[in-house]
C-alpha cells in the first residue's frame, strides 16, 4: 500500500511567500493572545492549592462552592473534573494558613453536605517553588534551543540551524497561543510536552535538511529552490506516515489517558500538526532566503557510500 507517489517535484518554494505569510499571521495571532489573554498557568507555577474530590453521586460545583463559602473559603473556584462525580477545587495562596489546615477545612466543609466525599488529591505549591519553576522552565527552553542550534550548526551549517530554530520556536509560540486562546490549563506536564515537541519537530527539519545536503552533492545542475523542492517531495511520504503514527499514540493518550494527560496530548497534537507545517513550509524557505548554496557543502567531506548514488527521481 502506498499513499504518496509524486511524479514530479511539488514546487513548494514558489508558494513560499504564501505559506510563510500564513505562518506569520498565526504566529502574530498567538503572540497577540499570549499578551492579551495570557496563559492559564497551573498551580505548579502560580502557587496555591488544588484539591480533587470524588463523590458517590454526581457532584454539583455550585453546591460545593456554597459549602466552602460557609466555611469562610471565599476565593475558591470549583469545577467538574473529567467526570460528573469528580470536582476540582482551586484556591490561591493564603498567608498564614498551611496546606494541611486548608485541605482539612475544605474536606470537613464538603463532608457536612455529602459524608461520603473521598479525597483524591491535594496539591499545594508555595510561592517560591512556583517562581523557581518559571525560571527553570525558561532555562530549559533556552538550553534546548542553544543545544539544538549548536548541533545543527556543527552537522550542517549555521543557516540551517537558524532556520530550524525559527521554525520550531514558531511551533512553540503557536502551542502557547492555543493554550492562551482557549485558556486551557498550562501545567508542568504541558511544559514537558512543549519541550519535547521542540526536540521532536526539529527532527522533521533535520530529515529535510539531510535530503537537501544529499541533493546538493547529487544534482550539480539544479537551482537551490529546485533542490529544496525535490528534498521536500522525496521526504513527504515519510513525514506524513511518521507523524501519523506518533499522532496515533497521542490520540490514544487523549482518549485513554484521562484528565491528567489530556492537555499533554493536546499540546503534542498541535505541536505535531504545526511541526509538519513549519519544518516543510517555514524552515526550508528561510534556508533559501538566508542564501544557502552548494558551496557550503562542497567543503564537507562526503560520507562513505554517499557519492555512488545516481539520480533517482
Amino acid at each position, binding site marked *: 500500500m502506498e499513499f504518496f507517489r509524486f511524479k514530479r517535484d511539488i514546487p513548494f518554494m514558489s508558494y513560499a511567500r504564501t505559506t510563510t505569510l500564513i505562518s506569520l499571521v498565526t504566529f502574530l495571532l498567538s503572540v497577540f493572545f499570549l499578551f492579551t489573554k495570557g496563559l492559564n498557568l497551573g498551580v505548579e507555577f502560580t502557587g496555591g492549592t488544588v484539591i480533587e474530590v470524588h463523590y458517590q453521586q454526581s457532584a454539583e460545583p455550585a453546591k460545593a462552592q456554597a459549602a466552602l463559602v460557609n466555611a469562610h473559603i471565599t476565593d475558591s473556584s470549583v469545577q467538574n473534573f473529567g467526570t460528573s462525580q469528580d470536582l476540582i477545587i482551586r484556591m490561591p495562596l493564603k498567608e498564614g494558613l498551611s496546606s494541611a489546615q486548608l485541605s482539612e477545612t475544605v474536606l470537613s466543609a464538603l463532608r457536612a453536605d455529602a459524608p461520603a466525599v473521598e479525597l483524591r488529591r491535594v496539591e499545594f505549591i508555595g510561592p517560591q*517553588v512556583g517562581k523557581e519553576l518559571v525560571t527553570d522552565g525558561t532555562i530549559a527552553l533556552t538550553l534546548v534551543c542553544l543545544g539544538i542550534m549548536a548541533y*545543527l550548526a556543527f552537522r550542517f551549517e549555521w543557516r540551517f540551524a537558524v532556520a530550524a530554530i525559527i521554525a520550531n520556536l514558531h511551533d512553540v509560540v503557536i502551542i502557547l497561543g492555543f493554550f492562551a486562546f482557549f485558556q486551557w490549563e498550562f501545567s508542568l506536564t504541558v511544559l514537558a510536552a512543549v519541550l519535547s515537541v521542540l526536540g521532536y519537530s526539529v527532527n522533521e527539519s533535520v530529515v529535510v535538511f539531510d535530503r537537501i545536503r544529499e541533493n546538493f552533492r547529487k544534482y550539480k545542475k539544479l537551482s537551490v529552490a529546485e533542490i529544496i523542492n525535490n528534498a521536500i517531495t522525496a521526504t513527504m511520504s515519510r513525514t506524513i506516515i*511518521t507523524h501519523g503514527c506518533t499522532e496515533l499514540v497521542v490520540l*490514544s493518550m487523549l482518549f485513554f489517558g484521562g484528565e491528567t494527560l489530556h492537555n499533554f496530548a493536546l499540546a503534542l497534537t498541535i505541536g505535531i500538526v504545526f511541526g509538519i507545517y513549519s519544518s516543510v513550509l517555514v524552515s526550508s524557505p528561510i534556508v533559501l532566503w538566508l542564501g544557502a548554496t552548494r558551496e557550503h557543502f562542497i567543503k564537507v567531506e562526503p560520507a562513505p557510500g554517499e557519492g555512488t548514488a545516481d539520480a533517482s527521481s
Partner: protein
Amino acid sequence: MNRYPRWKYITILLILLLGVVYSIPNFFGEVPAVQVSPATSVAQVDQALLTRVESTLKDGSIPYDGVIFDSNGIKVRVRDNDTQLKAKDALQASLGSSYTVALNLLSATPNWLQSVGALPMYLGLDLRGGVHFLMQVDMKAALNKQLDRQTNDIRNKLRDEKIPLAGVSRDGTTLIVKFKDADTRDQGLEALRKTLRDVTVTSLDDGRLQLVQTPVALKAIQDQAIQQNMLTLRNRVNELGVAEPVIQQQGPDRVVVQLPGVQDTAKAKDILGRTASLEIHLVDDEHMDGQTLAAAARGLVPPGDDYYTSNRDGEPMLVKKLSVLTGEDISGASAGYDQSNQPAVHVNMDTRGARIFGQVTRDNVGKRMAIILIEKGHGEVITAPVIREPINGGQVQITGRMSVKDANDISLLLRAGALAAPMEIIEERTIGPSLGAENIDKGVHSVLWGFVAITVFMMIYYRRMGLFSAAALGANLLLLVAMLSMLQATLTLPGIAAIALTVGMAIDANVLINERIREELRAGHSPHAALSAGYSRAFATILDSNVTNFIAGMALFAYGTGPVRGFAVVLCLGILTSMFSAILVSRALVNLSYGRQRKLAGISI
C-alpha cells in the same frame, strides 16, 4: 550482502532475552505484607526477633506465606488485606514501641528472578498513592539558635573560670563579648580559646572581643541543621509506621519527604508538619509584677527577657531569653504518670544536658523553670514548676495540668527529636490510593492502544517489512521497560506518557528505513541492494534526529522537577533503546528472512 554473522544474531537474541527477564517482574503484581523494622538504634534485627515474630503469628493463628529476613528488618508475606491488618496489630502488640510495624506490599516475583536482581519498576506516588512534601528549613533560625548556644557556652565557660563578664551582644552573625578591661579580656580570650573553633576572634580596644563566624562555620551550621532535621523527620516517620519512606536532601536547605501508600494523610501531615521544639528557660520572677507584665503584653518586654503565655490558662510569664536547654540535649522521653497519678512526661537527657541541668537547678533552687513548646515561631509554656532541689543524673519528670493525650504527644515529639530549625512545607502532593490505581490503568491503556494502532497500520502499509518494524517496536518497548526496571527508576504518570511517546517517535526510524527502501526499489535497484542502501542511508538521518531529541530530553532532566524528570529519564532511555531496536533488531529480522535467498525476486513492502 544482507547477512549478519552468527555472533550478531546471538548477541541480539541474548539482549532481548535479558530484556524479557528484567521486564517480567512488572507483571507479577504485588502481595500484601507486614514489615517489622527497628524504631530505635538499640533494637536488634536478629534470629531472636525472627523467632518472636513467627511465634507471635502462630500464637494468634494468623496464616502467613513466607518470612523474608534481611539487615533492615523482617517482612512477612500474607494472603490478603484482612490478614495483613490482623498480623500488624498482633505484631505491634507483642513487639512494643522499639520496633516499627508497617503495612507494605511485596512483589510477587519468584525468588529466582529476584536473585538476579530482576525487580519491578518502582511506582511513583501518583501511581501508588501517598504523600509528598517539600520542606524548606529556616536557616536564619538555625543560625540564631547556634549563636544562642555559643553565647551560653561562653557565659558558662567564663563563669567556670571565674572571669567577670560585662555582657554579650549580637550584631547579625557577629558576637561582641564585653569585659571590664583589656586584662580581663585577654584572660577571657585565653579561657575561651578552646571553646571557640571556626570563629575569627579580634580583640577590640576598650576590653571587647569580636567573634565573627567563618564561612566554614556558617556552612557547618547549615549542614548540621538540615542533617538534624532529616534525622528528626526520619524518627517521626518511624513513629507513623510507613513501609518505604523517602527522606532526601534537595539543594542546600530543602528536604523531600515521600510516604508511599499512606492512607491517613491528615495524621502524617500533622506529625511531620509539627515544627515543634522544646526549650527550657528560667522564669524571670524578679521582674514579674503586674505593671511589667502588662507592658510586656503590649510588646515592651524587659531587655534579656521573653514574654510567653501558658497553654492551659493563658497565664502570662516572663522568662530569661537564654535557654537553659533545648530539645537537642534530650535523649529520650516517654509518657507516664507521676506519684499522684497525674499524666506526666519522663525525660532523659544526654551527658551534656544532664550536666547543665544539674548545674542550673543547683544554682536556682526555689526559682521557677519554664518548659516551653515552640511551634511555628510561637512559644507556649507547658508548665513552669518550682525547682525544689538540684536535679542530677539527667532524669526529669514534667507534670502540670496536662491530659494523657498531651503527655503522649509531647513525649512523641521529644523522643523523635527536636528540629534544629523550623521547617515550612512549600510543596505538597497527596494522591489517594484509588486515584493511583486509576492512573496506572489510564497510562497502560494509552501505551497499549497506541502500540496496537501503530502495529496494525504498519503491517497494512508496509506488509512484511511493516511486521518487522512492529516487531522492532515491540522489542523497543520491552527493552525500555527492562532498562527502567534494572535502574529501579521511579515510574510516574508522565513517565508512562513518555513511554507512549517513545513508541510513537521510535517508529520514525523504521518509517525512514522503509521509505528509503521503497525509493531505492523505484529507482530500479535490486531488492538486496535496496535493502542494504535503505538501512545505510537512513542511518545518518536517524542519528541526527535522535540527537536533537536527546538534547531536549537532557535539558528536561537537568531543569525539570518531580514528574517532569521522570518523563525526561524515560524519553532519553527510549531514544537509546529505539536506536538499537529500530536499526539492529529489524535488520536482523530482515536478514533472517530475506538475506539467505540468493536470488530475491521482490520485497514485501
